């Protein structure tokens, strides 16, 4: 991947792939606008990047499903996102690279040595620490070791996907592999989380581009996600929001409301508590996003999304609740049991009161006659 581009600037490489300066300015301006950067930043980033040597990205995959990489690479056309990420900057990615075994590992160490202190480390997947790290190992080295080593020379770490960012599904209760997010392992490097299961490709490359173009870590929210993409909830930008405001809700997936495209809140949509750009950037080249396709948001870009109760329980409902269904048996048993216990306590209390009353009355009879 890297050898064919050695010594070229980004601009030259883009030209080789048929992307002119104007095309790149268009793209950078759009990214700057989307990220709410100052408007002069777009062309400035474009010019700076075009003149600089190609940036180096090392992409490590740990305990993951490759969905994030699929998201990145499954574009309909070879887009700039795809090019910048896959072709121009990627020095190591064990899934995409042709090399294998020793050759692949040496590509990684070469890249690490070659641009020590300058490369961006992209991590995909959580890091299992159980069983001495044995749950995820490559070339005889555990994920923890590999991550620590690669982090040393990184200018910044971009955690792609909810697993790397927050632990994701491996981290979910009961977390059998003792998996952790990157931020739990590496504390001394700037970390940018691009969460989502998977993240939106435009968001991943936009974040990288902004970092390469400015050399700055973007404004981050409390979960270290770029505010530019994660500053609003899905709900805030959802095209179905007017139905929420009017109190029109689909009550099941095949009712009149669902057919009319009403709000999916009561069917468990997590849009109101999920910060991501799905409602604006959308998916598959802007075609649609889950809510547009009739399914509520499952909140996949939020920490612990897998452990927050049913995807189909409304946010305001108990964690166990589902639209149109009675509380599950164990809850009913719990509540019913509580009522029985309460009634027993009440009966005991009434019994005590009765006994005390009788004692007082006997005392009264003895005294007063």
């Amino acid at each position: 991947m890297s050898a064919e581009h050695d010594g070229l600037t980004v601009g030259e490489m883009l030209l080789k792939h048929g992307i002119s300066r104007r095309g790149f300015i268009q793209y950078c301006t759009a990214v700057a606008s989307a990220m709410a950067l100052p408007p002069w930043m777009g062309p400035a980033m474009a010019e700076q990047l075009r003149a600089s040597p190609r940036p180096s990205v090392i992409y490590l995959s740990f305990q993951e499903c490759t969905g994030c990489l699929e998201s990145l690479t499954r574009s309909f056309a070879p887009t700039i996102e795809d090019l910048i990420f896959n072709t121009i900057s990627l020095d190591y990615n064990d899934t995409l690279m042709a090399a294998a075994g020793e050759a692949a590992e040496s590509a990684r160490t070469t890249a690490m040595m070659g641009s020590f202190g300058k490369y961006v480390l992209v991590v995909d997947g959580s890091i299992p620490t159980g069983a001495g790290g044995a749950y995820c190992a490559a070339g005889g080295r555990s994920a923890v070791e590999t991550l620590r080593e690669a982090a040393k020379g990184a200018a910044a770490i971009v955690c792609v996907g909810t697993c790397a960012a927050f632990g994701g599904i491996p981290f979910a209760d009961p977390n059998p592999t003792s998996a952790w997010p990157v931020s739990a392992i590496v504390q001394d490097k700037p970390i940018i989380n691009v969460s989502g299961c998977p993240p939106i490709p435009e968001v991943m490359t936009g974040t990288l581009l902004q970092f390469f173009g400015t050399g700055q870590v973007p404004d981050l929210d409390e979960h270290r996600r770029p505010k530019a993409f994660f500053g609003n909830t899905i709900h805030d930008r959802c095209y179905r929001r007017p139905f929420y405001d009017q109190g029109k809700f689909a009550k099941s997936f095949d009712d009149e409301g669902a057919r009319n495209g009403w709000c999916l809140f009561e069917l468990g949509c997590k849009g109101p508590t999920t910060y991501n750009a799905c409602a604006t950037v959308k998916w598959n080249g802007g075609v649609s996003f889950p809510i547009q396709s009739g399914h509520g948001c499952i909140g996949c870009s939020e920490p612990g999304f897998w452990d927050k109760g049913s995807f189909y329980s409304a946010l305001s409902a108990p964690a166990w609740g589902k639209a149109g269904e009675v509380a599950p048996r164990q809850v009913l048993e719990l509540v019913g049991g509580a009522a029985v216990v309460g009634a027993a306590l009440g009966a005991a209390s009434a019994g005590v009161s009765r006994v005390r009353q009788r004692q007082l009355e006997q005392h009264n009879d003895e005294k007063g006659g």
Partner: protein
Amino acid sequence: MDLLAFARGPALEAALVIFCVGVAWRIAGFALLRLRRDLNKPRTPIGKWITGGLMTVGSRSWPHPEFIPRTGAGEALGYSYHIGLFIVVGLFGPHIAFLGSLFGISWPGLPSGLITVISVLTLTLFLAVLFRRLTHPVLRMLSNFDDYFSWFVTALVLVTGLAATAHIGAPYQTLLAVHILSVDLLLVWFPCGKLMHAFYLVPSRAINGAHLARKGAIS
């Protein structure tokens, strides 16, 4: 586990358990005290007691005309905030989702904007009610911790609910979590204080009504 997951998961479960234990305890605790039969000959047959009891449940919802000049305004204030609460609790989509998932039913709601307006009105009435309690000599004398804390707990639910829908002061999920936690608090406090009147209202009126009907007296 984040705050919201805690609020609508374990905290809600614990609050529901305390609520159920407390309510059952409280009701059984007085209902199982001794009950003496009234041996005095009734004036009316038992059917009249029943209808008298049921009628009183309705008729006591508003004072008799003789009492209105003195109490009409106060009772109107009291009922209006209750009505506001019922609308906000029962006809707001997310609340329907909450109640519906407990009982497995659902019903249509009102537009959120309208609910917000009603909530603000209700909150205003709440403040008026508190002001009245603090300034009316009778109410001030009667009031104890229970009255003020029950007011506080209920008002807290209203305020946090409004903050959550208006996204004021914190991210939505935090506000929602705080709102649900305030509901959890309300559920825990419910059996401890005067909020129990929600359960007592109907039987209490019915019993007094039946008692008076048994004597052939007006109720």
